[in-house]
């Protein structure tokens, strides 16, 4: 166990059941600052459920988690975004009818302050804030590699670009932890490769990355540590090479045992 200050997210004994269905059972893990942490597992293993708990969408049935040293009440996603967790969605949830630029500008909401009075009177501080928001949003579009005009509607971007736009929007919240739910789903090999490079750039800028992924190759080549979920339980954790050799993982995930 590393030193407490080095832990960004500490999940302890989280459980979640939906009615009689137990989606997560006694899952504990911790993510260190600056890590790329992978979460893998077969379909229905509880990855997205865990994800939704730490981003505040679900209330855990048991257990708790600490982020950046503080305990958070679930059910308030905006509080966790404020605290520094930004996420993307498995099935892309952009503001489809707004422009790419507007999508990223909305990500800046949580780090800016102008209220109704600022909006009405457009005083100096509001104007400079608006200017900064636009500038930062443009930078981020460039950073994630969206080359189409900033005024293109989110829904008119290509699939890969929509995934990137979600990342840009999440980065706009200045996160400490960037949580990506299957970012490579549906991408071709080239797109996956450039996504990998983007994630490495993001990590090198000091942002911790949590990655749910199906693409084992991407996980293995990218993550510092990996946890494997199966039927709502953590069955393995460690550096990718060791996890890959773990018999339980091979049985559960890489197709052995009962298959």
């Amino acid at each position: 166990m590393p030193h407490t200050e080095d832990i960004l997210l500490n999940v302890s004994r989280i459980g979640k059941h939906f009615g009689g269905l137990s989606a997560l059972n006694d899952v504990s893990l911790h993510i260190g600052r600056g890590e790329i942490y992978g979460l893998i597992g077969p379909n229905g293993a509880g990855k997205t459920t865990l994800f939704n708990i730490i981003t505040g969408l679900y209330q855990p049935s048991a257990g708790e988690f600490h982020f950046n040293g503080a305990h958070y009440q679930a059910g308030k996603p905006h509080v966790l975004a404020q605290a520094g967790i930004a996420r993307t969605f498995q099935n892309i949830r952009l503001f489809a009818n707004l422009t790419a630029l507007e999508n990223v500008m909305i990500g800046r909401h949580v780090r800016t302050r102008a209220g109704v009075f600022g909006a009405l009177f457009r005083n100096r501080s509001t104007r400079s804030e608006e200017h900064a928001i636009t500038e930062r949003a443009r930078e981020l579009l460039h950073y994630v590699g969206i080359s189409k005009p900033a005024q293109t509607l989110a829904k008119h971007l290509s699939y890969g670009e929509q995934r990137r736009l979600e990342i840009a929007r999440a980065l706009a919240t200045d996160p400490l932890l960037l949580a990506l739910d299957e970012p490579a789903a549906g991408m071709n090999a080239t797109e996956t490769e450039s996504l990998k490079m983007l994630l490495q750039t993001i990590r090198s800028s000091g942002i911790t990355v949590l990655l749910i992924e199906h693409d084992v190759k991407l996980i293995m080549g990218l993550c510092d540590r990996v946890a494997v979920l199966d039927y709502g339980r953590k069955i393995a954790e460690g550096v990718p090479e060791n996890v890959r050799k773990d018999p339980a993982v091979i049985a559960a995930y890489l197709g052995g045992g009962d298959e």
Partner: protein
Amino acid sequence: MKLNINTRTLVVVLAIALLLLPFLTDALLGRGWVRIVDFAMLYIMLALGLNIVVGYAGLLDLGYIAFFAVGAYCYALTGSPHLAQAFPMVFPDGVHLSFWIVLPLAALLAGGFGVLLGAPTLRLRGDYLAIVTLGFGEIIRIFLNNLNAPVNLTNGPQGISRIDPVSIANVSLNTTQNILGIAFPSVHLYFYLFLAFTALVVFVSQRLERSRIGRAWMAIREDEIAASAMGINTRNLKLLAFAMGAMFGGASGALFAGFQGFVSPESFSLMESIMVLCMVVLGGMGNIAGVILGGMLLALLPEVLRHSVVPLQQALFGKTLVDPESLRMLLFGTALIVMMLYRPAGMLPSRVRRRELGDGETASEASVYDATH
């Protein structure tokens, strides 16, 4: 640059036309029509207020007229002898506050009611929200109708009459005023008052639309879960939208009470809420110019019919076959159907709506884009 000059010319021409409007209407159509135009301005203000709730934040509100009622009764109670008659011990001379106090009071009170409506409905969306807001609108109306007993607060279905006219800087808008040798009749004075407030509402709407707050509202409209995951406090922003919309409704209600001199619960029926919503939807949800156009058309059309249908039928058939009221509903229904078929985003759709429904240039542009990339 050329466009700039054209826009400026357009604005100047429009401003002059608006300033001359009551005199032109008076000269061409008669004094009664100036009054009708005044009412149309009130409706435009209401529609713009509702546009914040429905058009920006995407919260379908079917009880919006309740805020108009709250504002109107706030003005009516403070500006009429009713309180002095009903509670002579508490208000021996009534309240009779200055217009500049009552108006913000009415707006704030309505805003408070907006939050009151918003708070319990935060988790509701779409149809469900519409039904609850509809119920809220009816509750307010029924309260107004029945609060004449045990204490006579609202005077029940008889309504409140003898309301003070709006008076600004000791100039009563209820009498003809001579300014620079020109006689300004009362309806003209009210027109300018309403024009000023409409301009204010347009300004506020426009500023809000292009701000951090406006973007957050649009994000909530587009995808509430994604918005909250991006750190937008959806609860507060939805309440803010309800409150802002309600404040505009309350302010127009106060102006209405002062203008008409009489309020009663029947002015605030569900049909009125639906009319205001139709103004927003037919005109173009989320687009200020569209909403103004929608408000103008729907407020003026019934009057045009009322004044033209009967004489026309008399001239053609020698008797009245269809009364204007039923013809109005028939035309209104037809217009709604035709609009939904051919211009579902409204007459002047907003940027966002236009994209959403994918008609016109944006869509073809986009498909070309997709094809070439």
